[in-house]
């Protein structure tokens, strides 16, 4: 089972956190801190798996990928395949990329709701729902179409480019 899906930046700021088992807010923060300290101490060409027994209990692992300023981290137990999860992170990132056209950290910061929508189409209750990036895109686009109905007030529609150049 996937216990948590986390996106954090290389400074340790959480960008998306989703826990599939109930975890209190304090514990969530502690987890983020420990995960960050583990990941930030690992250089680039190491393997993508770290045992997480101290953080999440026995037989758990972090599977992570590092993209530019972001860490994508999935916490799994022994019922999942490590490489399979690595592929799933790839699918997640490819989908974000399709969705935001060259996704960057800021896209995720300002559109965290969208990212949640996408993540919900990929992982649900700690299990993989969909592995096809195309299928996920289809589902997500349907959702956004529906969302837009009745919300066509132009005052509310702004691009995010405006923020892209602000402080990173």
């Amino acid at each position: 089972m996937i216990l948590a899906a986390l996106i954090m930046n290389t400074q340790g700021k959480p960008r998306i956190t989703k826990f599939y088992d109930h975890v209190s807010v304090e514990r969530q923060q502690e987890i983020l801190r420990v995960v960050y300290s583990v990941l930030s101490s690992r250089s680039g060409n190491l393997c993508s798996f770290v045992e997480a027994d101290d953080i999440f209990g026995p037989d758990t692992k972090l599977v992570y990928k590092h993209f530019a300023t972001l860490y994508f981290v999935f916490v799994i137990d022994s019922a999942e395949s490590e490489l399979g999860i690595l592929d799933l992170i790839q699918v997640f990132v490819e989908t974000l990329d399709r969705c935001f056209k060259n996704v960057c950290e800021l896209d995720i910061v300002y559109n965290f709701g969208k990212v949640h929508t996408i993540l919900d189409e990929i992982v649900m209750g700690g299990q993989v729902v969909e592995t096809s990036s195309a299928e996920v895109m289809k589902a997500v686009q349907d959702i956004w179409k529906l969302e837009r109905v009745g919300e066509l007030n132009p005052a509310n529609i702004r691009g995010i480019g405006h923020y892209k150049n602000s402080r990173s």
Partner: protein
Amino acid sequence: MALSGMRGLSVFISDVRNCQNKEQERVRVDKELANIRTRFKNERGLSVYEKKKYVWKILYIYMLGYDVDFGHMETMALISAPKYAEKQVGYIVTSCLLNENHNFLQLVINTVRNDIVGRNETFRCLALTMVGNIGGREFSESLAPDVQKLLMSSSCRPIVRKKAALCMLRLYRKNPDVVNTDGWPECMAHLLNERDLGVLIAVMSLLVALVANTPEAYWNCVPKCVQILERLTRGQDVPQDYTYYGIPSPWLQVKTMRVLQYFPSIEDPSIRKSLLNVLQTILLRTDVVKNINKNNASHAVLFEALSLVMHLDAEKDLMSQCIVLLGKFVCVREPNIRYLGLENMTRMLLVADVVDTIRKYQAQIIASLKDPDNSIRRRSLDLLYAMCDVSNAKNIVEELLQYLTTADFGIREELALKAAILSEKFAPDLSWYVDAVLRLIDKAGDFVSDDIWYRVVQVVTNNDDLQAYAAEKARNYLDKPAVHETMVKVSGYLLGEYSHLLARRPGCSSKEIFHIIKEKISAVTTVTKAILLSACVKVLMHCQPPNQELFEQATATFRRYENSVDAEVQQRAVEFLALSRNGLAMVDIMAEMPKFPERQSALLKKAVDTDGDAPEVSATKLRLQQQNSMALVVADRRPPNGDLHLLSVTEAGASNQYPKHAAVAESQASEVPHSSQSQVHSNGATQQHASGTPHGDLLGDLIGTLAIDAPPAEPTTGPSDSQALEAPPKSPAISAASADSLALVVLDAAPTQVQPLKSVSEWFRELSVKDSGVLYEDPYVQIGLKAEWRNAQGRMVLFFGNKFTAPLRNVRGSVLSPPHIRTRSAVVPETIPPRAQVQVPVDVACIGASRETAVLDFSYNVEYTPVKVQLKLPTLLNKFLQIAPVSANEFVAWWRALGGPPSKIQEVVRGVRPMPLTDMADLFIRLHVGVLPGLDPNVNNIVAATTFYSGTAATLCLVRVETDPLDRTQMRLTVASEVPNTTYELKELMKEQLVDIPSLAQPSRTSASSLAAMGLTAPAAALAGLI
């Protein structure tokens, strides 16, 4: 676009990002929370847009780590909103903020249910996702049928059904009863016919959970899973969307292979064959390619295939292909593959005997121990630990010791423990063991637990030829300026005991040794001080001829601690001071410590979870046991014995006499416990005296009693008293084996001291309805049994395990068979090495029906004491039965055809152990008597059929049991078959099983056998009145 369109939200996020520090962020967040709180209070003025905006803000704040204790109601209210946009926000944020323990989640159950049963598929998806993420038991109870309907529906879109599958999984986890309805296995099998791969992946996840709990219920899914795998590996009917970097849905392949690993084994030959073919294909065709994503995906499949091959315990060549692949992986540069290679190689070691093959890669594995990647180092450590044996222990321990100095702190304790365990278990010679552990203490004293140094002392004490060597090592270590406290303890102790053996070597005179010890005494903790004081007095005592200068220095040292604040140190100082004035009398009191009774090393106990279930050996356990057999033997330094399985097959049945009644064996075995009384006295007063001292584990007792318990004035202090200081061993017989001065006592003792740990008949009873279990166990030896039966043939494997750390000698085991059974058994080796297990296969063939069983005549020696038992082997009639599928018509026809006695016998059985009919049916099935449900119109009756095989004949046997619902203790049992003897024997067997009461095994056993005896004497008389 929902979010980017929310200006307020974007501004808030920007503000937070612009905060210079956490404090500013908190101020900004608090301000926002206050704002949201006020706005929510006057909800009336809130537009839909604002509500959504605030809820998103709450989620963002929550993610930043602030506990938001309000707004939950508002969030949930959005779920009930009619518009999709609001509903979606409501569902997403609710499933992030809340968890199943929030009571008011129940308020939305109805809304959620409406969305699930409603017609809008997008609403359904949202609702299913939320329930799948946070649904609790209440959801489970009220939604399961609806979710199941969606899952099974053929009209829903795949996106709904896959979510329904995962939602079902959640509901099942919260309340396993939701799938306890009949027909779930059929539903699952049906779902596996699905063509849509997205739905299949979700269904497979659900199946994993179901099979993990009750594999036997889902056998029907195995062939389907294999078909799916075949479809995927052939790339048939796999849409482009589900092809990931050219590989047909790696996730589904992985999941499917995972499901198959939850089934205990796959026996059906044709299914197994096609599965192995698929696996073979995967193993052969996976290549390393440039594209890293493709590589990952193909290797994900490959590693899962490797796991499945190991799980299936597949044919040899497939296994060796796996090892070759793993060997390749542990050498590659790509870190992920190497990591998984190391991990899987460790698993491989646990399931198959492949140490020799893996040893080829030792150099590469050791290289990985020095990898910059911590994850890889850990995996490599685990693997080295698992692959260590006598042949490579020196090398591996050396590497671990080197690694200790550079390893991360987090791992050092584990590393130290592992190094200590390996050096103890696999030491090729004992001086090396002492070297290794002393070096370990020197390098990583902080991480060495007391158990480790206690064990060194035990080993040195029990091995005379090691003592001088150890003392010299200890002297050299203690002479160094900065020594770890643990090293001071162990060196001090060893010098006190054995430094006199070095007396003639340069720098090792009593005076010099005393100085080395004294140097350390002021800088250590009180516990260590006490040890060093004892060492001082012993050195003083050993100084021959007595040296006045040394004497003065020693007394000066004792004086210094005469007033120590620590009672222990003070007591020792005072006592030693008094003793040292006594001159020669001291020699007796300060004599060398006696040898330790042989005990299991606490370290090895830690290392191996030794629960005594020999026969139900998983491959893992077998492997562990094999490792154990190599363990260091302290009492008797025998080289580890590799060839345990030198078996030569001899015909046993013909040449051996068979005792008339197997019951003899039983009564003999059960006599043994009576002798237990006598052994309490066997060690005499010595033991009673000693039992006054509480004894902890290992040296705890020793250190405690170094300061002599008895006041020095007591005149009886003699050599034997030093024994008394030693804590009594737990099992009296063990002391016989090691403490040599007690040998006299042992010779006096009764020959049969050893008693089984449990009732032998109880073990036998269990084995009569089971195919594996314990046959016999006492403190020294365990005999396990594992059997396979096919028709009239059977093969039992007896596992003789030596639990003791000395070899078991004079082991004799022969199988005596009654006339109706033929046995052929391998020879039991005469000596079983310490902690080793020997397997002895026994082939059995049944010629006729009888209640008599084969008997194992087993004996061995503990030191000079012979232990002899006769054990009934479960070659009972029921082992040669096979459940017969008989239709109702056939049954009735046969039943009629077998008219009356002696082909059909009826008996009213009284004193039956009361049990529900279902339990009785279970018991029948365990006896291999197949119950035919629904055949008898009376629900209180059971009819059953089975086939008895003997020689080349097969006899159909029919059974009918009529119970009385008012009085469960009696029943009428009718058995019919064409062969009168078989009928009779089967009836007796069933009667015995039904009358027997396990909790009162001993008494009821006798009653059952007396019944049987009665039956034997006058079968016809017993029958006459009943039919």
